[in-house]
């Protein structure tokens, strides 16, 4: 049992998802592996994205990142909405926790879940998909930044939503389209010009493209551009989240 308000909240958030790990970690890993199985089976013979990389290999980093992002978002948003609806959010509002500690604990715990799911997908594909690890530092950087961004977005959604269906709307109409239309299953070069343009305003595209560059040394845009965009998104969303927390928006009437 850790001591210190921040460490305790981080521990509590991690323990919370770990206690239902079958649902929060194992299930999304299985879902991603099923995606891999189905898409690689159906498309491997028809799609060639990069000359030196098979479609199945191409797919794996995208699926790892997609599951990482979705679960980082799910952790913060579901924890906060549940606490708000049931009223037990009071237990973390009464203690002497600063809004920065609150933010850091929720985001780090969500990143941990996202990384565990991503790691699970990676481990599950090791035995039948060959991957390169051209630039491991890029892999780690984009995994951490992507997880942090979606975790922060989850905090915003969890605080903003008053009801579960509002959160479901946020998840289904914003998070899902952003992750599915981000080049997980394809290279954006295979899209018509209009949709290529649309993809370029989707920040999740840069997360996945930069992450994939770490594996293959190949990407649709320069990883430095992706890093700059993803880094900016992180700063922007973190600032917005911290402002909401500092003002007590929907938490401290």
């Amino acid at each position: 049992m850790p001591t210190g308000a921040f460490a305790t909240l981080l521990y509590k958030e991690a323990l919370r998802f770990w206690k239902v790990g079958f649902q929060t970690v194992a299930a999304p890993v299985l879902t991603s592996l099923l995606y891999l199985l189905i898409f690689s089976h159906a498309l491997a013979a028809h799609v060639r994205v990069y000359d030196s990389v098979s479609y199945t290999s191409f797919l794996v980093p995208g699926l790892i990142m997609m599951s990482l992002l979705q679960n980082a978002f799910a952790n913060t948003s579901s924890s906060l909405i549940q606490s708000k609806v049931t009223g037990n959010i009071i237990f973390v509002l009464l203690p002497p926790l600063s809004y920065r500690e609150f933010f850091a604990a929720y985001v780090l715990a969500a990143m941990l879940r996202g990384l565990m799911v991503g790691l699970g997908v990676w481990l599950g594909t090791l035995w039948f998909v060959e991957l390169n690890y051209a630039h491991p530092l890029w892999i780690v950087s984009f995994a951490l930044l992507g997880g942090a961004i979606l975790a922060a977005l989850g905090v915003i959604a969890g605080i903003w939503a008053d009801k579960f269906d509002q959160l479901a709307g946020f998840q289904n109409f914003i998070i899902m389209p952003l992750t599915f239309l981000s080049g997980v299953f394809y290279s954006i070069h295979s899209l018509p010009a209009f949709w290529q343009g649309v993809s370029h305003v989707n920040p999740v595209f840069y997360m996945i493209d930069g992450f994939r560059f770490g594996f293959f040394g190949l990407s649709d845009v320069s990883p430095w551009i992706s890093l700059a965009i993803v880094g900016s998104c992180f700063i922007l969303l973190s600032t917005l989240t911290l402002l909401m927390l500092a003002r007590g928006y929907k938490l401290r009437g």
Partner: protein
Amino acid sequence: MTPAIRVQQVTKRYGALQALGGVDLEVARGEFFGLLGPNGAGKTTLISALAGLVRASSGRLEVMGHDVVADYRAARRGLGVVPQELVFDPFFTVRETLDLQSGYFGIRDNGGWIDEILDELDLTAKANVNMRALSGGMKRRVLVAQALVHRPPVIVLDEPTAGVDVELRQGLWQFVRRLNRDGHTIVLTTHYLEEAESLCGRIAMLKAGRVVALDTTANLLARSSAHALRLRLGAGSVLPDELAPRVLSSEGGSLSLRFDRFDEIGAMLDRLRAAGVAIDDMEIGKPDLEQVFVDVMRTA
């Protein structure tokens, strides 16, 4: 010595609704203080502002001399709140809940005190049971335990006995009295006025976000000279109209009539006899806090 709680000109507005309209009060260290008022009077809003759960629109609140906004860490360390709603985290056991709450307050190795609280609140056998599996009364006890886990000098109980059985109520008051004897300042809100009368040394009454009475319980009781003549009327008896303004309460065949001086009783009984009213039973009641409360709310 700084008071345990200081509230200065606190207002809270929710859009058009003025929940608190300039509340001023102080609670001395070691007091057992009652905060009474009808629903919507602003009791919970005031407690929430004190605990940092809502932000006052204006004014200043202090706990043990620490401003609840500027020096919130020290203020929150000094305060334990038992919330009105029966809230719990369904992911954890009772002990995990209390361990986590200790951690939030930065307390290391709190097992000894947690065991003591569990014992006092008769929760030891439930320590490793998930919160979901507890009865309502047990959950209420855990809420009390959570508020005490960091040994706060000031404890606020927001209607802690709402919907709990007599046994728990008595056990809880015994425990809270002991905490008060040990030096803890207690602030209690309750709708059970007999509880407030027997426990609180001083009481504030709120109405529509304002303090309308603030005095010792003894002074408040002395403020009302009204006694009650409690009667059980015979079947078919009807109270004469001229005694109707004296009715304090009426239920079935029983009613309470207000009087200020004992020599009024004779005239009241004469009037009842003259109207042919049969009296099956009669007793005289002393002024109680409930009557004082009703009077204050009526006149404020």
